[in-house]
């Protein structure tokens, strides 16, 4: 069985979703979803360990050998991503806040869990496959299930938020498909490694250039790179809080992976950065995202919207790592995928706890809750410190690598800008601290049950652990960066 793990990690959640429709009872479906997520985490950890010891794992779907058949291909980068996605799923799915602030009709919860599992299957599929068209199929599975999940938010605005995400997501998906079509038209192959072999002699072709542009724009919409981020704040704000936690911590990470894979594996860094100078386009956008996202977060009155704008800034940091195209820069970007998944997942779960008790996610709702809900508020403070990048938290590690990467490239101004934009994060995090600990309590509430605060603290605690003990996170990320750049260790 063990050689089938790279297929089973996608197949299991994909087939577990229809099982939810047969089980029907909310309690059983909840347990089932959690078990599936944990099983996926175990598989992902096994695969990561195996990639680090034995090198690239390939799997030919249906026994059809690549490049004709669909190939699943795991290297240090996608195995790392699989661990991020499954880890977040296995913390968020069992959490007590999973059904908080959803608008599910009576007896329909099993459909919600089926959509969660489909979303997980799609994300794992995008990450594992080595076939460009297969990527598109999984992008659609992920997107369709996330539109459903977002539209289940409590407020009616959730519907418009989901719809505008649907429009933007469909445009992004179509751009990806057009790009893939152009590449296929010229090369006659969809396998990423085969494309990488055939593309170098065709790079002058205008079709290939147009295909590359389509792929970049489509991927950037899905990743919510700065000017294409308009769908993100509304989607994260109006989705159920646990869905925001899951999607914010995983979906953008997987889109980032997709962009990195297309740039480095399919087209090659030499073409993208030396010939096309893509970094002179992406870098200003990344820096603009860091400042615009953080500044917008300062002025938000809703906790979820604040976190969403902060996500846009964090996506800026990750994109910056991509632009550096050096081992240190990419390590910073990739380790920030992991660290940001932990802190944003944890923070959104903490907000879900607030919503559970107060029924509101506005910043005023946490006024004075520092005494009433000490664990939840402490989680928000620690997660916020990690967003700023205070030493001892995971956020510090990723920013450290990004700054060092910028200095290595001689981009001194960029490293200063990274530090300056972190200072803006101090402002919005301090607002939360001030409201929570120095405000007057508005609600008579008590701490949430352990099933809700424990998952929050698993993620927030992990940001503290991985802020000090970085062997696994940075080691995995630098192995992933080397795999992307084609450097043999």
């Amino acid at each position, binding site marked *: 069985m063990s050689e089938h793990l790279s297929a089973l990690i996608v197949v299991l959640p994909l087939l577990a*979703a229809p*099982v939810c429709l*047969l089980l029907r009872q909310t309690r059983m479906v909840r347990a089932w979803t959690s078990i599936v997520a944990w099983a996926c985490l175990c598989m992902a950890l096994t695969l990561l360990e195996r990639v680090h010891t034995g090198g690239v794992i390939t*799997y030919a779907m249906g*026994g059809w050998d690549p490049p004709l058949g669909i190939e699943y291909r795991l290297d240090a980068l996608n195995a790392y991503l699989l661990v991020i996605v499954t880890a977040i799923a296995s913390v968020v799915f069992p959490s007590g806040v999973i059904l908080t602030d959803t608008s599910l009709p009576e007896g329909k919860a099993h459909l919600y869990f089926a959509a969660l599992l489909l979303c997980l299957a799609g994300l794992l599929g995008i990450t594992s496959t080595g076939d460009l068209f297969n990527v598109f199929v999984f992008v659609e599975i992920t997107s369709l299930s996330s539109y459903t999940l977002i539209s289940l938010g409590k407020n009616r605005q959730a519907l418009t938020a989901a719809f505008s995400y649907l429009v933007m997501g469909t445009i992004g998906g179509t751009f990806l498909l057009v790009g893939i079509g152009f590449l296929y038209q010229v090369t006659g192959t969809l396998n990423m490694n085969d494309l990488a072999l055939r593309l170098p002699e065709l790079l002058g072709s205008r079709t290939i250039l147009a295909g590359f542009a389509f792929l970049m724009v489509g991927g950037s919409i899905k990743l919510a790179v700065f000017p294409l981020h308009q769908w993100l704040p509304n989607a994260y704000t109006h989705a159920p809080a646990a869905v925001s936690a899951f999607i914010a911590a995983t979906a953008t990470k997987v889109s980032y992976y997709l962009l990195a894979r297309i740039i480095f594996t399919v087209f090659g860094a030499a073409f993208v950065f030396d010939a096309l100078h893509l970094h002179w386009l992406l870098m200003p956008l990344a820096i603009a995202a860091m400042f615009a996202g953080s500044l917008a977060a300062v002025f938000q009155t809703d906790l979820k919207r604040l976190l969403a704008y902060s996500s846009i800034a964090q996506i800026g940091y990750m994109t910056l790592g991509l632009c550096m195209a050096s081992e240190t820069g990419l390590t910073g970007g990739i380790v920030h995928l992991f660290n940001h998944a932990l802190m944003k997942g944890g923070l959104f779960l903490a907000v879900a706890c607030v919503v559970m008790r107060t029924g509101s996610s506005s910043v005023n709702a946490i006024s004075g809750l520092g005494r009433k809900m000490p664990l939840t508020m402490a989680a928000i403070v620690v997660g916020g410190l990690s967003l700023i990048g205070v030493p001892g938290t995971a956020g510090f590690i990723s920013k450290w690598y990004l700054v060092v990467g910028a200095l290595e490239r001689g981009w001194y101004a960029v490293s200063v800008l990274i530090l300056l934009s972190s200072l803006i994060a101090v402002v919005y995090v301090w607002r939360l601290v001030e409201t929570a600990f120095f405000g007057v309590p508005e609600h008579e509430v008590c701490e949430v049950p352990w099933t809700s605060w424990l998952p929050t603290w698993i993620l927030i605690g992990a940001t503290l652990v991985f802020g000090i003990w970085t062997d696994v996170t940075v080691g995995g990320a630098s192995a992933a960066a080397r795999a992307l750049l084609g450097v043999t260790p």
Partner: protein
Amino acid sequence: MSIKPPMRMREKVLLRVASKAFIPLILLFALYVQFHGDFGPGGGFQAGVIFAAGFVLFGLIFGLEALQQVVPWSIVERAVALGLLVYGGVGVSCILRGGRFLDYGVLDHHSPMHGQHLGILIIELGVGLTVAATMLAIFYAMAGRGRA
């Protein structure tokens, strides 16, 4: 002078008789497209849509309530899941028989070609089931709007 209320579809003899004659033929044609799909044009998706079209026609003529008595919502929902499970189940059973996921060749011990044939047949059945049920689910959702 009172205005006559518009006739309901089921009160129109022509529609009722014609649809009663057509529905069995539509379902039969769907089965033909389903099982002849590997020799001619067709397959699970098309067959599923045609099969569902038979039920949709019944619903249009005789009303949503009558259709939901024939195919209740709970069956539709389970059929959607079941079709996907049939598809995935074939893939998993290929692994259990020592092949790769969806490697139908191992389904028949004597000849891989028969295995491929059997595999695609069952998989298309799963596709047909899910597509037909999904079409009905969409019809129920659209037609039932504003009623619940």
